[in-house]
């Protein structure tokens, strides 16, 4: 548990910088299809150790959200989304529980549980995260179609970014 703190801290710094300095500036699809936003920072919440106390999890989600909000100049939007994501995390973990259960001391990564499990886990949680985010960002049911389009487009491209990170960096914990 304790040896997971430092790697997670580095990861936090890396993801925030990446999100702020790179991904936020990227405009995929040009002006004709500007529905694509890239996100990597939710992965930080997905990769937090299984043993993290729930209260800590909520606080970490809030802090990460506020930091990202500071970058995006959107007070509360990412924070509210992250809070919901960390509350959904145990639910999603329970849905995709491996046959022999989760192992203590192992990170929630590809190396521990395989590509298939990790893919399902991250896809569902990321999709939920993006849905909540765009609902709060667009904030009106009048544009339900736009919310859906943005969620799907951003989901696909963010998943690619996350996969690239997981395969290049290959974190154990």
């Amino acid at each position, binding site marked *: 548990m304790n040896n997971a703190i430092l790697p997670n801290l580095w990861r936090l710094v890396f993801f925030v910088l990446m999100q702020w300095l790179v991904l936020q500036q990227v405009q995929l699809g040009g002006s004709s299809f500007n529905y694509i936003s890239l996100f990597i920072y939710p992965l930080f919440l997905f990769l937090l150790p299984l043993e993290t106390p729930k209260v800590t999890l909520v606080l970490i989600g809030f802090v990460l959200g506020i930091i990202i909000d500071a970058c995006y100049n*959107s*007070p*509360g939007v990412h*924070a509210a989304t992250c809070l919901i994501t960390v509350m959904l995390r145990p639910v999603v973990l329970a849905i995709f529980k491996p046959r022999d259960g989760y192992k203590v001391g192992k990170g929630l990564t590809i190396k521990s549980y395989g590509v298939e499990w990790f893919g399902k886990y991250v896809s569902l949680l990321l999709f939920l995260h993006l849905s909540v985010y765009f609902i709060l960002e667009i904030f*009106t049911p009048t544009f339900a179609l736009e919310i859906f389009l943005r969620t799907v487009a951003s989901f696909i491209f963010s998943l690619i970014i996350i996969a690239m990170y997981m395969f290049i960096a290959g974190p154990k914990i």
Partner: protein
Amino acid sequence: MRNLVLLFLRFGHILLFLVLEAFCLYLVVNYNRRQRDIWINSTNIFSGYTAEKTNDWSNYLSLDEEMEKLATENAKLREKLINYGLRPAVERDSFFIKERPQYELQAAKVVNTSTDRPNNFITLNKGTADWVQKDMGVICDKGIVGIIRSVNDEYAVANSLLHRRSFISASIKRTGAYGVLRWLNSNPRFVNLTAIESHHNVMVGDTIVTSAFSTHFPAGIMVGVVEKSDLPSGSSFHEIEVKLSTDFSALNYVYIIDNQKQQQQLDLEKEVMDE
């Protein structure tokens, strides 16, 4: 105490989540321009909608009161209309004390009525407390209704026109010939106009109104139109069936007419008759 701590350990994260989430949503709608505009707009729509609905309901609940008010106002207007034709040709000087109008109207609500009996009555919600007296006429917006027969403090009962013993003077508007309205059949849509002498010309479709001889009604109140007219050979009177303009089965608000000069006229006539 220990239980409380255990409870917090167990559900503390949910409490923390709810507090932080509420705080975040507060930030969202207060410090993001678009979200704030949408939020304010939506709450305005919502509060406007609820205000409108409550308004609708309170309007609906006060409908009775409104009806009462409108009926009273209508009575005043009708009173003006009826008395308008009775004004002296030369306006009196304002020095003289203003005369009361000859006919005063007040609105009343029908609380009970019938149309299917040989003698039908109408109960009204005004009584002596509202200066209603016996022998006052009753009309409605469509036409003539009946005559007040008895009164107590709160209610008045009127003989409907659909009563075997109602005799009301009426005339044909076109020719001025007058007769007596009687209800001889038992159809609540029709009455008979009797005592129109045979030399008068009566046509189907002629308008029948109250005559100037009645002490209960002002002249010219609508009664109905001639539906059927017969002159049996050897008879000196027409047999006329009049289709009533008043629908007695759908009476709601009526006007009670107070003729200020009724008593004077009756007294004088009685004096002459007695001689």
